[in-house]
Each structure stands twice: as C-alpha cells, then as structure tokens.
C-alpha cells in the first residue's frame, strides 16, 4: 500500500466514517454505501488533500477504491508524489 492508498483509506475512515475493515482496493465506493452525494463530498476532500483538480462527475460511485487511488496518482504525477 503506497502513501496515496494509505491516505485515501484514512480519509474514508476518518472523514466519511466508513468501516475500515470493509475498505479494500477491489471494493467499489457504492458497496461501501458511498452514494452519489457522498461521492461529491469525497471529490472535494481529495482535491484539497492531494492538491489535484477533480471536476464534478469525474469520481463515480462505481469506481473501486483502487480506481480512485489511481486517478489521484495520475493527476499528481505518481504514487505518493504529493504526500
């Protein structure tokens, strides 16, 4: 687990209060009960945390936790580059 994965898991548990035990790279946001509204919240949190732009609609609840981590990696220039 790289620094982005680690930080993403912390955000999901600490800020969105997702059950830590349920978080895995393969699980979708939807299966963590993160609905379309909470996805909008999450996008804003990630923008601020990782200093990357995430336009509305880019993050979806069908994405897995791993997909989200990859998105941030791509935008920030590599795993853990900005953390």
């Amino acid at each position: 687990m790289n620094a982005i994965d680690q930080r993403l898991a912390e955000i999901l548990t600490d800020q969105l209060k997702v059950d830590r035990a349920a978080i895995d790279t393969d699980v979708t946001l939807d299966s963590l009960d993160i609905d379309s509204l909470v996805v909008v919240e999450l996008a804003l949190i990630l923008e601020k945390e990782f200093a990357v732009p995430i336009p509305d609609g880019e993050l979806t609840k069908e994405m897995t936790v791993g997909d989200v981590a990859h998105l941030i990696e791509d935008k920030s220039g590599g795993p853990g580059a900005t953390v």
Partner: protein
Amino acid sequence: MPPFEVAVTGLGLVTPAGADVAENWDRVRSGRSCASLDETLPDPTVTCRVRGFDADAALGPFAARQTERFVQLAVVAARQAVADAGWDTGAWDGARVGIVLGNSLGGMQSVERQHANLLGGDPRAVSPLLLPMFMVNMVSGYVAIDLDARGPSQVTATACASGTTAVGTARELLRSRACDIVVAGGTESALTPLVLAAFRRMGVLSRRCDEPATACRPFDVDRDGLVAAEGAGVLVLERLADARARNAHVRAVVRGYGAATDAYHVAAPEPNGRGIELALRAALKDAQLTGSDVDHVNAHGTSTLQNDVIEARVLRRVLGGRSLVTSTKGVTGHALAAAGALEAAYTVLAIEHGVVPPTANLMTVDPAVELDVVRAAERKAPVEVAVSTSLGFGGHNAALVFTAA
C-alpha cells in the same frame, strides 16, 4: 356513531429528562428542571439539552455523520416506541405502516455550517448533503428507512403544535384505513446560535440566566419567558380493535382531536384564545365528552407571559375548575415541534399511573390562572380522561383527548 378510538401501544422518549420512557417519567414526576446555562451559545442563554446521546452508537458512525440531531433523536425514540409496542419491524407488513412526525426547524446546524462555507467564497464547499440533512421532511424519510415503514409518511409543521398535529393526523390515517399502524410524534433539535438569537430578539426567552434551574416556571406570577429545549417523542398508534385483537398492551386511547387557527397574528396568540378554545372544543366533541369529564390537562404552559394566561382562561372556560392541570415544560423546557409529542407521552403515563406530575418552579400561581395547577409535588388521582393542548407560532392550535385503556 361511537367515537373513533386509537390505541397507544408504544412510547419512546429521548429528551432532556432522560434517554428512555422510564427515565423521563421519573424526572417529570420529580419536578426537577433540566435547564442549565448553555455553554455552547455566544450569549447567556438557558436551554434544556439531551445529555449523553451517542449518535455513533445508535446509528453507526457512517449514518450518524450524514444525519442531523433532530433525525437521530427521532430514530432512537421511534425504535423505542416500536419495541415497546411489541412489533418486530422485520416481520410487520411495512406497506401498512405510516410515519407522521412533527418538526419545525429541521437541521439548522447544517444550514449554519454550510452557509459559513458559502461565505468562505467557494460555492463548491457547500456540502451536497445539506438538503437531506436540513429539510424537515427528512426525518420521516429516515425513520421510514430505519423501520421499513412503506405506507404514507409526512412531517407536520405547525410550529410548537407540530407533535400534537402529528398524533391527530396519524389518527386520521388509521380512521381512513390508509394504515394499520402509525408511528407518530415529534422531534426538534435546533439550539443553534442563530435560532436562539432569533428567539431572544422576539423577546420570548427567559432572561433568568443567574438561576437557570428556575428559569422555566409555567403559570407562575414571576415567569418571564420560555426555555428552549430539544428532544423527540414517539407513539405507536393502532386502531383499538386491532390492538386488542393482537393482545397488545394498550397504554391509553386517543379518543379525540381538534385543530384550529387563530387567524390573528403570526407570533402572538389571539388575546381571547379563540383558536385554542375552538381546537379544545372540537377535540372534546370528537371524543363525545364534555369539559367536566376531563380529569387532567397537560397544558402547553410555556412560561411566557402571554401564553399561560390566555391558555388558562380557555381551560377554565371550557373545562371548569376541576381538572388537575400541569405543564411538564417546567421540567423539560420547550421542545418546540417535539413538545406536543413529549406531552402526549406524559399524558399517557399520567393515565397509566394515576399520577399528575407537578409543574416545576411554580411558586406562586398567577392570580389570572384560575385552575387547579399541580405544584410542589405530584398528585395521585385516577385519570380516566386527559387532554393535551398545544399552541404554535402561526396561530396553530391543537388538542388531543386521551382516555384510559
């Protein structure tokens, strides 16, 4: 046609007076006020808050983060009431279960927080959860999800009469057979800086901040205003015949309901109490009873200068002087839209126990109040017929008539 009778088969209470029905009843009977100086507000203000409520434990942290306290309190009170009624929500026919809850101010905490975010300059900082967290109707939506109640659901918003309106509305859903069970009551949690500042500017709050425990003193000659509170009260209602058929424990019967409007002023009560008189007379007529039948009144009794005298005159005029009158707001404070629901529950308990709780802090009864107001200590007396009255900003008035099972 005989009066339409609805059984109260379950009660749930989460209020400043306690985390469940038993704690509430003990505290209300004791006549000890729950009021204290509120450390969370910028200006000295006396309030009654629910102590020790753990939303994370009750709803789970994930759901608790996405709900405001008025919803959280209601969910827990509703669960209590349903359990008390002996219903298993996994086994009932949810399509026949309705929800009617009173609320006025919704999730004001979210409004104030998100407005601050907006003023910070970035509209995107406004949470997408703002609307589902603050809208008043969301409480019936959340409780419906929690209980798998798929019949009609709604929130009644008649200000401080909302809880009473909810019980009356629920009774109509049972009468029309739209539902077989209705989870009814009220909730309020809006003790925010903005709301309290607004109440203060209206001049309705007690200014007795140096002695908060005696700030709310309904019907007392020295009363100087209300003490705002939070809380939730829920009743499970079923047609009496249905409740008897399933051998449910019937705690009391809702036998009459009346509602009326002052059509006078948005905040001040009509000086002759014509709205509350109309509502009370309608409730008695609905119950096919007369004023002299009423053993006990749980009055609205807010501790404001105007309400208590106007209400007392109407009670005297309609009921005569025999009824034992109390205002449990002396203990709980004024839980606004939840007040009528809390007081409906306390009225049921008074009937069940044959006990009329005292009006806390009532030292000297206002001479204009020509009623037998119970003070100092509870009064033991058979209560066969009881009334609960509510008045709200907007000129809303509502009254319920309860009878012993």
